[in-house]
């Protein structure tokens, strides 16, 4: 799964070719109305060829044979595109299936008694049963940790080599079958029946066996069927028109059925018709390459329509931890003095915030990190009671902590808390930073400003999203002041401060009531209602089972920024469909110029004036158009699988660009292509 497959991987080509033959089954063909018409045309022309062989054909047998062959190729090429897309998906699924090896599970009759285990095959485990998993064991199925904590290697599904901690209670209690416990032990309650586990569903999803047409795909299919119908009528009525023309002019012979079928197949949107399902499969599989499992094609498609992105502040917009950014001394205190005290107070503090204070002091005043033991200091750890930490060195009592905690501490020592410091604290909070106070005994030395560090490049990313028409909303538990400052720095459009699960749900509903599509990421159980409500909900794989059930995508990398890629992939899928439809229809113009003069050459030789490509002969013209029509499907398979590149340029620019490339290009390319094929046919003296 980690391995990137090249476009026409040799391992995939063979099976894909076999599959394209297998798909000639009429029951399969029937599912794609456009290609079904080609399929019928192939059968009919084959019949006409046989008729020509046995004697009274409507055209030379070699000509009908060539048309028939290329019509069959058209069908096969479309089959091949679909088979190749499915093959790539299956290859990805196969690597997932590797996880499904049968392991022995240790079933517990009683969760409390870990000494009595019954060995049982993992694929026989039912929902609700309880198993013990110890170091070195594979977790036998999806479940929830109900007791213990263990480090688990989930690299098989995430690709991330660092083990993760799974423990009972809280947001890290869910485990996935097929992953391996590295240390300690856990007791797991199985939450899925055999065949319904997460991996089972992922495999089913990517194998496209269960692939259903998405709403937009259905709408497009309706348009394609309508176009096909109209072309069926436009070509079918040509026969009576031609018969009439021959009768009244007394010239030539009526148009042949072979030419009519060739014209029909060239005109109906076979390019998009043949590639449509491949585009859908490829969309899911591109998500997969980004390590996102979409639960349905509908979810991928919806991603393209997202108007509002809800993003968690921590981890998505800012780095996980705050860092010391500035030291603001109190009146009468030198900054260096404050830095010194702050560094001493943080020496034993191993939290990232604490380390960042040490680093800041070192950077600003070249204060070298000192060894606490050599100073004979005593570390005073953080406690929920005092909400301070620090160090006692001799008589000095250095403390750092939240403003109100230090205020209480100082006042308890009989000192008046300086007003100026209080206003500094408020000032810092207003900037969106977290103020920490440092005190030496009863004396307040000053304020350390802890800042949320906005991820590099994220502002540009949001700018891009804005140009895509997507509004970003930051979700944070911070107070509104802090939230507003970070929101401004990160360049998000809006924020939700002091967010509770209810507030999130309400926000999503209010956006949806205005007709917007909302996407969000989440991992905790308390995110589940909001995930269920959102139109595109990406659950982190590290998240709880409840979150994963509620979402319609799972990000195996658990990277919240992935949402942006998800949106782009969704858009790409729609764009690819639209662009190829335009290309397909625009192609028809050149085909008319090739086929119409040729088809009526005997009745109305004057029509040869329309043969602007100067195709060598009527037979060559019709054959070249048919061959071009078949080859263009093969030529566009890479585009269908990779997708048209999405650029955040704004709707008008993007449309103009694609209209130019696929509309105008679609008009011009076939003129060159058909002429080229015609010249090749001359070279090999086929016509």
């Amino acid at each position, binding site marked *: 799964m980690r391995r990137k497959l090249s476009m026409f991987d040799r391992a995939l080509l063979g099976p894909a070719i076999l599959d394209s033959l297998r798909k000639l089954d009429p029951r399969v063909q029937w599912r794609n109305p456009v290609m079904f018409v080609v399929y019928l045309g192939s059968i009919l022309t084959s019949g006409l060829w046989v008729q020509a062989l046995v004697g009274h054909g409507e055209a030379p047998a070699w000509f009908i044979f060539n048309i028939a062959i290329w019509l069959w190729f058209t069908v096969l090429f479309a089959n091949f595109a679909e088979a190749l897309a499915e093959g790539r998906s299956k290859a990805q699924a196969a690597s997932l299936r590797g996880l499904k090896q049968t392991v022995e599970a240790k079933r517990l009759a009683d969760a409390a008694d870990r000494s009595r285990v019954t060995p049982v095959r993992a694929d026989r485990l039912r929902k609700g049963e309880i198993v013990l998993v110890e170091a070195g064991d594979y977790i036998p199925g999806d479940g929830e940790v109900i007791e213990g904590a263990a480090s688990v290697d989930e690299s098989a599904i995430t690709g991330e080599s660092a083990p993760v901690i799974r423990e009972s209670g809280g947001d890290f209690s869910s485990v996935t079958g097929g992953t391996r416990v590295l240390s300690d032990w856990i007791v797991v309650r199985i939450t899925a029946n055999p065949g319904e586990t997460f991996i089972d569903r992922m495999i089913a999803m990517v194998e496209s066996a269960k692939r259903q047409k998405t709403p*937009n795909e259905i709408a497009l299919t309706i348009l394609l069927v309508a176009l096909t119908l109209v072309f069926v009528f436009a070509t079918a*009525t040509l026969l009576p028109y031609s018969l009439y023309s021959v009768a009244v002019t007394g010239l030539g012979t009526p148009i042949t059925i072979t030419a009519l079928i060739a014209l029909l197949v060239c005109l109906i949107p076979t390019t998009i018709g043949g590639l449509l399902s491949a585009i859908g499969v490829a969309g899911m599989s591109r998500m997969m390459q980004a390590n996102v499992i979409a639960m349905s094609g509908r979810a991928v498609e919806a991603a393209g329509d997202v108007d509002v992105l809800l993003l968690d502040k921590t981890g998505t917009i800012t780095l996980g931890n705050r860092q010391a950014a500035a030291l603001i001394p109190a009146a009468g205190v030198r900054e260096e003095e404050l830095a010194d005290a702050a560094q001493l107070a943080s020496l034993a503090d191993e939290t990232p915030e604490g380390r960042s204070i040490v680093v800041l002091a070192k950077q600003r005043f070249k204060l070298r990190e000192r060894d606490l033991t050599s100073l004979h200091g005593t570390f005073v750890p953080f406690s929920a009671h005092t909400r301070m930490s620090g160090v006692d060195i001799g008589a000095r009592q250095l403390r750092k902590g939240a403003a109100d905690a230090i205020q209480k501490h100082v006042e308890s020592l009989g000192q008046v808390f300086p007003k100026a410091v209080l206003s500094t604290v408020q000032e810092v909070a207003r900037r969106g930073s977290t103020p920490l106070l440092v005190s030496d005994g009863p004396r307040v030395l000053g304020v350390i400003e802890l800042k949320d560090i906005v991820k590099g490049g994220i502002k540009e990313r949001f700018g891009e999203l804005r140009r895509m028409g*997507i509004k970003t909303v930051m979700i944070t538990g911070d107070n509104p002041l802090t939230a507003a400052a970070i929101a401004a720095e990160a360049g998000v459009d809006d924020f939700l401060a002091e967010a509770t699960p209810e507030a999130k749900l309400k926000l999503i509903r209010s956006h949806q009531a205005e007709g917007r599509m909302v996407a969000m990421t989440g991992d905790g159980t308390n995110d589940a209602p909001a995930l269920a409500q959102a139109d595109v909900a990406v659950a982190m794989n590290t998240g709880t089972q409840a979150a994963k059930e509620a979402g319609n995508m799972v990000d195996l990398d658990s990277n919240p920024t992935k949402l942006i890629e998800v949106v782009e992939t969704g858009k790409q899928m729609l764009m690819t469909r*639209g662009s190829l439809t335009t290309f397909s229809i625009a192609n028809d113009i050149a085909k008319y110029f090739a086929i119409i003069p040729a088809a009526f050459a005997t009745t109305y030789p004057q029509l040869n004036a329309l043969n602007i490509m100067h195709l060598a002969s009527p037979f060559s013209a019709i054959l070249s158009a048919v061959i071009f029509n078949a080859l263009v499907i093969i030529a566009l398979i890479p585009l269908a699988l990779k997708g048209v590149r999405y650029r955040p340029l704004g709707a008008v620019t993007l449309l103009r660009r694609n209209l130019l490339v696929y509309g105008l290009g679609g008009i011009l390319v076939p003129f060159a292509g058909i002429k080229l094929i015609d010249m090749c046919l001359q070279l090999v003296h086929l016509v």
Partner: protein
Amino acid sequence: MTGESWGLLALLLGVTLLCVKPLGLYMAQVMEGAPIWPLRVGGGLERLIYRLCGIDPGEEMGWKRYAIALLAFNALGAVLLYALQRLQYFLPLNPQHLSAPSPDSAFNTAISFATNTNWQSYTPETTMSYLSQMAGLAVQNFLSAATGIVVAIALIRGLARHTVKVIGNFWADITRVTLYVLLPIAFVLALALVSQGVIQNFSAYKSATMVEPVTYREQATNAAGDPEVDRTGKPVMRTVTTRTQILPMGPVASQEAIKEFGTNGGGFFNANSAHPYENPTAISDLLEMLAIILIPASLTYTFGRLVGDPRQGWAVLAAMTILFVLLYSLANYNEQVGNPRIAALGVSEAATALQPGGNMEGKEARFGIAASTLFATLTTATSCGAVNSMHDSFTPLGGMAPLFDMMLGEVVFGGVGTGLYSMLIFAIIGVFIAGLMIGRTPEYLGKKIESFEMKMSAIAILVMPFIVLLGAAVAVSVKAGQAGVANPGAHGFSEILYAFTSAGNNNGSAFAGLSADTPFFNIALGIVMWIGRYWPIVAVLAVAGSLAAKRRIPVTEGTMPTHGPTFIILLIGTVLLVGALTFVPALALGPIVEHLMLWSH
């Protein structure tokens, strides 16, 4: 193209553009029931109509009820018109004692006028009594026009409203349109036409003796009234010589006004607007052209106004105007170039101060090339069908222009209402593909375009090509169809194709050259007109209902704007591509090959 040709076009479009906003705004206010003075003046009459008919104008309908009411109303109109024609001999206002038209002809005419087609297989002055003309045909001229407009209004409401199930009250809509838009303006227009010399009387026909006898040839008919053909399928012609001329009279002006203003097109006389009693002067010609284009053009403003963004309306109008100029250029250029075989005889076809030049066959000398081709383009691009020249006599490509105008689906201004709603359906289809190309589920005016809209839009657009191509195919395949053709060959094929295109698009103009008053053509074209009118209407109402029920999506940076030049080009491209791709093969066997043959000698 001559300076006169451009000048006339500029004059027509200039005056039209000046009228678009006031008339469009007025229609919007009428449909919204705004408290403007005409509504206050007519309020009493309007309420009386509602009371008499038991209508509650405030009770809005879902799309299905709206469609059923519309179909029932139109079917009833057709039945009444049929009965009136069949009984006209026994009814008053029949000074010529004209007998009833044949059942198939009456069937054709009833459908033709109910569907706003006004295809006339009969010769009015020798077929219809004054009562049939006034109480039958003219009434349908008003009501069929009103029907088209209310469907457009219903679709606009579907786009403008959100999360509701209703699209208006059909009875109130049709009453308001007739009462406040069609009747008053047609009244003023009729007076204006009378001032130019259009007649308005109930006299019996007058007989005049000509200075010189006239000899002409016409296709013979057999005892059954069918045109005769010899064994090779060629029509049998006979020579007629006459000295007297009958001058038909009648209440022409009152019918002439709504004929154009409702894009109906059914002439009081067979010669239609080429007849001096229908269209005597250059001013009346301009007035009639303006009358044809005014409502279709102004409805775009009504649309923009009612959806709350006039730019949307202007964009649609721009697309229509550009297409119109292109189509006019095609007709005008080819007519001005003329016929190479006439030039080969040493006859000058150059435009000079003394002659219009070009191909003048079938054109009134008083109108010349410019006014004839402009009228021809206008009458076919809208679904009017009135003519002031004979399209059959145009050069092959010049004649292809009116034919192609209709094949585009009557969206270049189009019929009253039908033009706008068909164009909006094209917009929906264009936006669908374009929307995909920018990576979003397509939306138009904030409404998502999904499978139901796609299905209905496809029906609305594809019914026309389907019936036109199929009808023409049947006609060229059966003896009864082939018999009507006066000019076998590519031109004869054009004649048949034109007849079915005209009927399928509810245009009603005739290419002539086709003897269409036969049971076969009357019935075939009647069916085509009926399907071509009401299938799309039901589909459009379905789209309206479905859109009205949807939420409106707010506009963002990612939304494709539907008012800029890109959208206009997209819309034009969609219309041209669908029209061209569908009909190019058929056109190749008709006008295109005829043109190539004409010029290859």
